[in-house]
């Protein structure tokens, strides 16, 4: 897989500097020894996005998190918002959404340690990049549709990063959400 960063920007915030997630495939990725990666493929339509809740809860449980932790419902909302955003902005008929759930330690240091975080990645098979710059930062006085989805995701997740990624001749939009402080059922 060839992966080229085109942009990397925080969703609806103008201030945050983003984390480069492109190198996490190799040296920067650290997971618990027990970790597996859970993945899901959905048709990129709004009806299909409704199916991600069941997958998310099952994936969290398999990764050693407590799926009954009330935080999980907020996490579902955040992931739902990012997934619908992908459907809305980045895909055409017949495209698909990919989701991946992973367990990683944060902070991620060479010395090890850290607390387990639930990391959810969402990307699409579309070729139109979502231009974060075209979505204004929402204000309660100025109703707008999509900006609130990203605002919600950013409030729930410890970090939300977006990058445009090129795989062969297709551009896809890849979101990474890191949720910290999720109750773990593992000792």
């Amino acid at each position, binding site marked *: 897989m060839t992966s080229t960063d085109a942009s990397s920007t925080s969703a609806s915030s103008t201030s945050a500097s983003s984390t480069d997630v492109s190198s996490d495939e190799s040296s920067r990725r650290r997971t618990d020894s027990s970790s597996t990666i859970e993945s899901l493929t959905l048709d990129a339509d*709004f009806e299909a996005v*409704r199916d991600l809740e069941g997958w998310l809860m099952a994936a969290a449980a398999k990764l050693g998190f407590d799926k009954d932790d009330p935080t999980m419902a907020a996490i579902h909302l955040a992931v739902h918002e990012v997934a619908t955003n992908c459907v809305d902005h980045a895909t055409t008929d017949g495209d698909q959404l990919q989701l991946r759930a992973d367990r990683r330690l944060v902070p991620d240091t060479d010395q090890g340690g850290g607390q387990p975080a639930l990391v959810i990645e969402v990307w699409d098979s579309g070729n139109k990049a979502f231009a974060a710059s075209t979505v204004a930062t929402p204000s309660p006085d100025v109703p*707008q549709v999509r900006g*609130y989805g990203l605002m*919600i995701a950013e409030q*729930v997740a410890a970090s939300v990063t977006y990058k445009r990624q090129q795989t062969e001749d297709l551009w896809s939009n890849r979101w990474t959400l890191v949720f910290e402080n999720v109750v773990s059922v593992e000792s």
Partner: protein
Amino acid sequence: MSENDAQASLKAVRTAADTMAVTETQLDSANTEKANGAGAVETITLTGRLDVVSSTKLRKTIQEHLEAGRTRLLIDLSIIDFVDSAGLAALVRGRKLARKAGGDLRLVQPRRADAMRVFELTTFDQIFDMDDSVENMIKRWSTS
């Protein structure tokens, strides 16, 4: 609506997959504001998920009421399971249009924390006029 029609009349309208029961509640006639014709509060009860799929239907329903001159809309979210940003946006837009038409759009707040969360995360719980039951909101609305 007749001034004497003080009894709440109820009509349920099914609008496709997600059940959206639309009921009509008449205000106490003593409190109706006949001058601007805004006496009746239209209560729209939503069940299931108010999300990106079903919000289109809600937008349409709100639009139809406003076009028919029913500008006081009470959206009952008390038994809703889930609300996302698209559902929120439909409510925000409906509120804006209703106020522009001289009325308002108010809410009966969701009982479920999961459904209430979207309002809190966006601070719209501070923007919307909410109450904990249809009865309380109508009572309050009729005296304001």
